[in-house]
């Protein structure tokens, strides 16, 4: 079973890595990283200035706060990388099979559907995580150049949370993918669901005094809140230029894990159904 899972995962990962979508995503990520380098190398001072003035703080910032701001800004943009990666890779993982009619070839192989689904999930995750890692690696190098030192241990938390977020986004992408027979429809629906639908639900939650962190899109932002507990989108929990407290990080992690579990369950049920109705 492990042999088959390894083969399926490596086969589909290779298919992703060789794809134009992967090169396009890698190119976009590098382009975004270059823009971030320009932003943080040449305009960090004024960015921080406008940033802290809103909080009514002094401009004489300690170096730790400058470093946290640097990572916070990079993290803020980072959020979009796994969303786009999942829209390209995960949202097309199953719908592509149906669109190109390769699903009959895949399903006729002597391997269980569960293994196929897990292999698809892992390969989409590896492809998206590769893009994510490119961005974070550039951020890491940019940090070292800017501050002439290694980033603090928060950077490890940031990377691990980024991977969890990526896995969660990929799970959502796979779940959406199982509903569609066209890759483009699945990708667009995934983006609409993520960017539009979740924001509307978030507003409804805020207006109804329900914790908006229960929405995945808000819980995702824990990634940059490990540097500063600020969120330009959700001020429900109040802001602080200190890192988010551990209980808030754990709460967001729980939310992300719960969403991931639900998405995987939906994907599993739909994937099995795909195999039996057509």
């Amino acid at each position, binding site marked *: 079973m492990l042999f088959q899972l390894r083969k*399926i995962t490596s086969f589909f990962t290779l*298919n992703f*890595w060789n794809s*134009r979508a992967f090169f396009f995503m890698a190119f976009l990520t590098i382009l975004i990283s270059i823009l971030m380098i320009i932003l943080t190398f040449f305009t960090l001072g004024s960015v921080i200035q406008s940033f802290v003035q809103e909080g009514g703080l002094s401009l004489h910032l300690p170096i730790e706060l400058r470093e946290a701001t640097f990572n916070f800004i990079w993290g803020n943009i980072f959020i979009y990388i796994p969303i786009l990666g999942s829209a390209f890779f995960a949202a097309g993982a199953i719908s592509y099979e149906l669109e190109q*009619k390769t699903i*009959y*070839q*895949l399903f006729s192989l002597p391997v269980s559907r569960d293994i196929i689904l897990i292999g698809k999930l892992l390969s989409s995750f590896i492809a998206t995580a590769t893009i994510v890692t490119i961005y974070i690696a550039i951020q890491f190098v940019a940090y070292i150049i800017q501050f002439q030192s290694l980033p603090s241990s928060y950077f490890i938390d940031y990377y691990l949370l980024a991977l969890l977020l990526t896995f969660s986004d990929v799970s959502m992408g796979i779940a959406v993918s199982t509903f569609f027979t066209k890759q483009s429809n699945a990708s667009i629906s995934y983006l609409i669901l993520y960017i539009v639908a979740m924001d509307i639900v978030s507003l409804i939650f805020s207006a109804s005094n329900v914790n908006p962190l229960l929405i995945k899109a808000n819980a995702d932002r824990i990634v940059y809140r490990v540097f500063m507990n600020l969120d330009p989108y959700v001020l429900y929990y109040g802001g602080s230029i200190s890192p988010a407290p551990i209980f808030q990080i754990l709460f967001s992690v729980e939310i992300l894990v719960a969403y991931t579990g639900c998405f995987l369950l939906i994907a599993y049920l739909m994937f099995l159904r795909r195999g039996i*109705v*057509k």
Partner: protein
Amino acid sequence: MSSIKVRHLEKSMGPDKTLLIKELNIESPKVLGLLGPNGAGKSTILKLLSGSVELFRGEIEINGIDIREDRKNAVIGTGSLIENPRFYQFVSGRHLLSFIDCIRKGTDFGVPEEVNSVLEQIGLEKKGKSLINTYSTGELKRLSLGAAIIGNPKIVLLDEPLDNLDILGELVLDNIIHQISNVKDKILIMASHDLGLLEKFCNEVIILIDGKIEETVIMDYPGNKKIITLDKSVQPTLSLSKEYEHTGSEIIIEMSKNEEIISVIRELNSQGYEIKRINDYSMLKRKYLDILKIKGMNIHH
């Protein structure tokens, strides 16, 4: 020996359409054809036998294993080409075949040698290393055939194998079918609209109409019948030295071995008939058209 047993099979094919097969037993060696109009259920049968579609009523046993109870072991010796897949664009043909072979065998052992042999068989030795998105339609079809036969499956299911094949591809297909039909423990099932292909290779052809088996035609007809189309309707007064059947302006006549058709042509000419064309008589075509006519599906022309 390989075997397929189907009992009381029922599978919905859309609104008001259901595939219904009371009983079907197939034992090796066998080359079986599936013939029928579009939507008759040919591809659905192949999808069910390949294990890629699981929701159905009834029983399907492959080599004695119930496909519903143990799909993985039931289909382990089955290779299929269904619905002309476009495949994964960003891996090479070699990589695709290796992947399928590894999954079928459950090991890497001997895979490169087998992939080389199949690539050679389908005429893609050189192209094998290129990404699939560079393949032409015909090359893609040959690759699909390779994917169906790699791992030496005992049961091979081919859906419209002639579609998109050029002359090279047809030769590849001929070789593959010959190889399968020469092995005693193999079963080949082909769904095709091409009567010539079915007549050339099949031991039996199942004619399907609206999801039901209308007739199973045994393809053991050894004769040499010809259809002669004349310039006008055949008159009752026509007298030939050989026995014949006629419908409209067509004469069906059986030639014995080594007998030349020219003597019949001379007789017809002497009685005022011009020959428009001469074709081999297709028993399968005749039966198929008769069935379509009975079902009210014939086209007048």
